[in-house]
Each structure stands twice: as C-alpha cells, then as structure tokens.
C-alpha cells in the first residue's frame, strides 16, 4: 500500500497539480488576451473598446465565454459527426499539451525533455489536423476551402520555422529548451535575437502565418469565406477552436521568447532580483502585443502573395542563414560542445 502511494499516487497528484497550475492561468490568459486585443485595437483606432461589462469592461471575456457556453451546439445533418466533434477537441488539446515543455523559470518546467524543441515542433505540426478535419467534416464548401488554405499555409510556414529553429540550435548546441535559455544568460546583448536578427524578424512573420493571424488570416477571411473552416461550428465547439487559436498565439509567443528573447533571463544583470517567471511573462506579452499591433496595422495578404513569401523568400533566406551560421561556427571553431 505504501509502495502504491509513494510510487504512483503521490507523483500523480503532484503532476496533476502542476498541470492545473499551468492550464488554469493559461485559460485565464486566453480570456484576457481577447480583451486585450479589443482594447489595443480600440486604442489604435481611437475607440474605447469593451467598457460596459464590469469596471473598464474587465468582465467582458467572462460574459462572452458564458454566452458561448449557454448557446446550443448545432451539428449539421450532412456533417461527418465523429470527425466534426473530434476536430475542435484536437485543436484545443494540442494547444494545451505543448505547454508541458515550456520553461517558465530555472527548473520551473513540467517536463524537462531533452528533445523539448522537437516536441514543440511536432505538436505544432499536428495543429493543421484540427483545422483540416473541421473543414472536411463540415461538408460545406466554405469550410472546406478555408481548411485547404489553412492547411497549405501552415505546412508552408512550418518549414521556415523549422530552419530558423535549426540555426538557433546550431549556436546553442542543445535541443533542450532550458539549455537554450541558459545559453542566453547575461543580459540583453547575449540574447539570440542580437545574433540572429534577420531570422528573428522572419520568425515573427512566420508565427503570424502559423497561427493564422492577420495579415495572414486567409483561412477565416470574412469577406470571401464567411469565416473559413469554423463556419458550421457553434457554441462550445466554436469556443474550443477560439481558445485553441489564442492559446496557440500565446504558445508561439512563448517559443519566440525562449528562442530569441532569453526566456526567463533578465535584460540587464542587475535586474536579476525580479523572478524569472515575471520576465518570461513580460516577454510573452511583448510578442503578443506585436501580434495585435500587426493586426490593427496591415491589410490582409492575397493568397498567392502569401505562398510566394513563404516559399520563395523565407525558405531560401532561412536556408542561407543556416548555411551561414554553420559555416561561421566551423570556420571560427566555435561549435558548441
């Protein structure tokens, strides 16, 4: 009995507690990201944004969530029911489980995998299934076109993201996310974005495309496709897509912070007394603000331009950068052990 408790039940309880400690704040963050989005875009367009429900409209996301929760879930008669229901769940679960390897602070990580970055890459490459399945199962032309666009887009930009990750890994010498951050300790001039500056920009643009955000939000182009792959979804099934999309935005911002902005490290050494988790969250907020800022500033890309940018510009550019970094490391004998 004691063995059972010490060997299995206690670790299980601990892991569940840790998972809750990540997931619950994440869901709250998703809710308030929608609020921040409306407030920031409102400010950019000289409007007030939500300001009616609660003080400063702070209860607006809760009201929206409640509304979605109380609505009726409609499943179209011609839909492929099983796949139709699994698709939003898949999107949501994938957006959540990727957080297992994100290091919030030194040692503050759920699973310190040796192949952490590959795990993240694998999970994000699965994200396309939720969308493609939703589009196909809805059995509607708008949804299907949206899904096809989205699938092609996510697959295309994944390649440049992968190559950018490789060039960062070359300078770090580890696939472990915590080690990647540890390689950047020592202030803002040690962060990877200084050394990989062109790739930092390409990465930001690629994660915009990867998360289907403006100006690359073609999958849900309201004007042509009504709302893309999720036209036929309602109530909680829709809410799961929505949560998944925003959780993915936060995740990609976290990845950007880990790879380029020094993760939990302080920008200046004397600021080390502030806990690392706070720096990490601030960096995520910074990248998220770029997401919102871009959405309010740029018009939507045309589809062929999007593909051209991904395949003819970003792909060769990131390939060239990988070669350049590798050559530099070998020639100057700086390959990390």
């Amino acid at each position: 009995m004691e063995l059972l408790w010490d060997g299995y039940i206690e670790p299980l309880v601990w892991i569940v507690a840790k998972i809750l400690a990540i997931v619950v704040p994440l869901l709250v963050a998703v809710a308030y990201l929608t609020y921040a989005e409306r407030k920031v875009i409102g400010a950019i367009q000289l409007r007030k944004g939500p300001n009616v429900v609660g003080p400063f409209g702070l209860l607006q996301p809760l009201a929206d969530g409640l509304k979605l929760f109380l609505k009726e879930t409609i499943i179209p008669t011609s839909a492929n029911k099983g796949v139709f229901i699994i698709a939003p769940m898949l999107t949501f679960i994938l957006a959540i489980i990727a957080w297992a390897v994100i290091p919030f602070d030194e040692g503050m990580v759920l699973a310190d995998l040796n192949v952490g970055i590959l795990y993240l890459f694998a999970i994000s490459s699965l994200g396309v299934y939720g969308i493609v399945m939703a589009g196909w199962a809805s059995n509607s032309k708008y949804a299907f076109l949206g899904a096809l666009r989205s699938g092609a887009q996510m697959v295309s930009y994944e390649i440049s993201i992968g190559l950018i990750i490789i060039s960062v890994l070359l300078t770090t010498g580890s696939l472990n996310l915590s080690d990647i951050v540890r390689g950047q300790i020592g202030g803002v001039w040690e962060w990877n974005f200084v050394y990989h500056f062109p790739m930092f920009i390409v990465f930001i643009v690629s994660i915009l495309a990867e998360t289907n955000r403006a100006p690359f939000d073609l999958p849900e182009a309201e004007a042509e496709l009504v709302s893309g792959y999720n036209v036929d979804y309602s109530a909680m099934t829709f809410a799961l897509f929505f949560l998944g999309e925003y959780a993915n935005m936060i995740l990609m911002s976290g990845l950007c912070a880990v790879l380029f902005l020094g993760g939990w490290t302080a920008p200046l050494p004397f600021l080390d007394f502030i806990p690392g988790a706070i720096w990490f969250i601030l960096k995520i907020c910074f990248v998220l603000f770029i997401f919102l800022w871009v959405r309010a500033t740029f018009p939507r890309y045309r589809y062929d331009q999007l593909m051209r940018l991904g395949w003819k510009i970003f792909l060769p550019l990131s390939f060239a950068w990988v070669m350049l970094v590798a050559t530099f490391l070998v020639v100057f004998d700086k390959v990390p052990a």
Partner: protein
Amino acid sequence: MVVQALAFYLFATIAVLSATAVVTVRNPVHSVLLLILTFFNAAGLFVLLGAEFLAMLLVVVYVGAVAVLFLFVVMMLDINFVEMRQGFLNYLPIGVLIAVVLFVELAFVGAGWTLTDEAVAVLAQPTPAGVGNVEALGRLIYTDYAYIFQSAGLVLLVAMIGAIVLTLRHREGVRRQKISEQVKRTRADTLEIKKVPVGRGI
C-alpha cells in the same frame, strides 16, 4: 515498471487496432486519420524504447508532413464507395500473397533479432553509454556513414526534380505579378499632373 508495461500495452493495442481499421473502414478519409493514429502510437512505442528523438521525428515527418499530403489528396477524391467495393475479390489473392510474403520476412527478422548474439548485444544498449539519443544518431549518420547518407539525399533530390519536371507546364497568357517592377516604379512613371483651365477640360 508497471506503468511502462501498461503504457506499452495501451500504445501497442491502439496501434494494432487502428492499423487494422485503416484497411477495413470504408471512408478513405477515416482511413488516413486512423493511419495518423497508428503513427502516433508507434511514436509512443519509440518513446518507451528510449528513442525519443526518433519518436519526435516520426511525428514531425510522417504525421506532420506526409500524412497531411495524404489527407489533402484523399479529401479531394470523389469516390463512389459501392464501385470501390466491387473489385475487392479480384485483388484479394494478390493482397493475401503480399501479406504472406511480408509476414514471413518479418518473422525471419524477428527470429534473427532474438537469436543472434550480436543483435542481443545491441539490444541491451541501444545507444553507446554516456551519449544522448540525438548525438548517437548524428554521429552515425553524419560521421560514420556520411557518404551513404549524402547519396541517399541525392537520390531524393533527383526524384524531386524528376517529379517537378514531369508536372511542369508553361501556360500561355498568364499575367504574373512582378514585385520588383512594382517597387521600382516611380511617381514620374505613372502620374502626370496637369493644370486644367476652368470651363474647358483637357
């Protein structure tokens, strides 16, 4: 160890069941989705074997890229399911033959693996001691067998070029956007400012 054993049986059962379902379900899209489930469980088995790098690669390459293309193609097929079932008996003997050959080969491999001493020695220690998964594989591919790996890459490159050449066709009369020309354009090329006298027009 109990948890590992349970996890193994879970992954193995789902992998076998979904692999069986891949060939038995009627809807080809369901087939592809089940195939993805099979890949995923195979990745789980790799993790249990301590080959986490291979597991992640399996997910990234097969699930994340190859199966997506499968799914794309299959989704766009317009298939009459009744017609598809009709040829079933005609192809049955060939299918059974292939299955038997594959099974016999697998049995040989399995028998060889468990019986020879060399195989047992490798089995006990999948990677050299003190070296991580990624490093061990990298050393094998990029140091020990670099030339073979390079030639495999060349074969793939040739295959890719071949596929592109076979499907490449130039269409006449397509207007393409030339971004460099658009950027090079100056105001003088496109705009002409004219003073229009009142009441006369141009």
